[in-house]
């Protein structure tokens, strides 16, 4: 490690001493970590362990009780140019699937943060970004379909395409694998890995699928009320982090299937 020259990328996200309470109950306590540009980070942890709260704090959607987050060297809540951040919330946080809209309309809305109020029309750069996003996610042919007619896996790609249409530098996904079968899921994570490698996209991925995440990401944050452990997947696996994070019972379940 000491002998190999490594180009250290600048820090994209820096959290220091983050604490958040909801109705006096501690959700997250004293979390400090940093994430560099171009990293593909998996956030793992049990349900109710504070994963979603953590990314909302990072994105400035919640204000920490104590501590701070800096994104691209700017204070979370004061960050000016947010158009370079794309967030795909959990399915339950989004409007249900009866929403009357086409794939194109949804993907196009990814460009909206880049637009000034008085110039609502698509420019060439917008059309190019939308076309690129549809192509990357392999849904060009679905563009005119209504989202109500799509499968879970297709819808997942539509939301990824919306995020990509913004040409983000930071992509945050909260449990994108919920309700999607294993094969579709693996293809989706491979696509994310490709975007990370080819385009240097910084990715934060919340998931509870330990196995799949450790195979794809290059950095893991284990969250259970606080930062239980973090590091490269290979290192963490050697330290039996799954047991630490979920307790022995869950670890046992992991091994049996």
């Amino acid at each position, binding site marked *: 490690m000491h002998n190999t020259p490594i180009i250290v990328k600048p820090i994209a996200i820096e959290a220091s001493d983050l604490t958040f309470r909801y109705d006096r109950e501690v959700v997250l306590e004293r979390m400090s970590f940093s994430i560099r540009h171009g990293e593909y980070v998996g956030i793992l942890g049990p349900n109710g362990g504070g994963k979603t709260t953590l990314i*909302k704090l990072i*994105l*400035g*959607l919640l204000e920490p009780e104590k501590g701070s987050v800096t994104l691209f060297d700017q204070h979370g809540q004061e960050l000016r*140019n*947010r*158009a370079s*951040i*794309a*967030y*795909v*919330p959990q399915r339950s*946080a*989004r*409007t249900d699937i009866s*929403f*009357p*809209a*086409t794939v*194109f*309309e*949804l993907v*196009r*809305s990814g460009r*909206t*943060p880049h*637009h000034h*109020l*008085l110039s*609502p029309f698509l420019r060439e750069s917008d059309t190019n970004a939308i076309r690129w996003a549809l192509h990357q996610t392999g849904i060009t042919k679905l563009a005119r379909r*209504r989202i*109500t007619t799509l499968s879970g896996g297709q819808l997942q790609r539509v939301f990824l395409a*919306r*995020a990509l249409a*913004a040409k983000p530098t930071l992509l*945050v996904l909260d449990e994108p694998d919920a309700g999607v079968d294993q094969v579709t899921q693996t293809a989706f994570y491979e696509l994310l890995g490709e975007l990370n490698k080819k385009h240097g996209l910084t990715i934060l991925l919340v998931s509870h699928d330990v196995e799949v995440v450790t195979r794809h990401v290059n950095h893991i944050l284990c969250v259970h009320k606080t930062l239980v452990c973090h590091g490269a997947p290979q290192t963490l696996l050697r330290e039996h982090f799954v047991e630490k994070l979920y307790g022995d019972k869950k670890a046992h379940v992991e091994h049996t299937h």
Partner: protein
Amino acid sequence: MPEILTYEFMQRAFIAGIVVAITAPLIGQFLVVRRYALLADTLAHVSLAGIALGLLLHIQPLFGALATAVIAAIGIERLRHTERLSGESVLALFLSGGLATAVVLISLAHGFNTNLFSYLFGSLTTVGPTDLLVITILGIIVLVLVTLFYHRLFYISYDEQGAAASGIRANALNTLFIILAAVTVSLSIRIVGALLIGALMVIPVLAAMQWRQSFFRTLLLAECFALISVVSGLLISFNFDLATGGTIVLVALVLFLGSLLVRNAR
């Protein structure tokens, strides 16, 4: 000129009706997709309190309705934002609170019952020149603002958090939208009445949604259905001496049923 338009009050009713038909689904579609359709009825009941206050204090009732609806709208949005109460219960609170206030104010000053009836169910003959001016100006403001904010409203309607994370000011936008809804409700009361305005905002949208189009085309269709409902509703109610608001809403219902049948047939 058709005979019906030789009456000045009918000319005013027609222009006001067309303004209302254009603005109602514009707001209504965003309400429906956000499962917030009851907001229209809530604001209408609150407006009724404002109308009663206007009649009591001899101010233009339309201004009374506007003021109370806008204030209530901001209150609803604030309460909803704190998340201490569910959106539904906030609406229930304001709906019954508005109606109770209206009833008490009415009983305070006896004798304007016939006038009040026109505010409950809409009326052709009561659209005065001042009403028409205010309705037209406010209608144009609503149209312009919804057009400007269309893409942002679309984004927050299906994914508020994703929008906020990307820098769209979702809270400010929600407040603006609910104020526009309050304005639309108040200016529609003259034509369709407080008890039926919710129907005009929602039913044309539901009818349009049966045609399974894109969001934008659904909106255009809803606009068409609302215009057809209002114009034919006005004509029918004039010719057969029927209650205006009720006739308009019945036409909208027929269009909805027709759309439903076409959908099932396909």
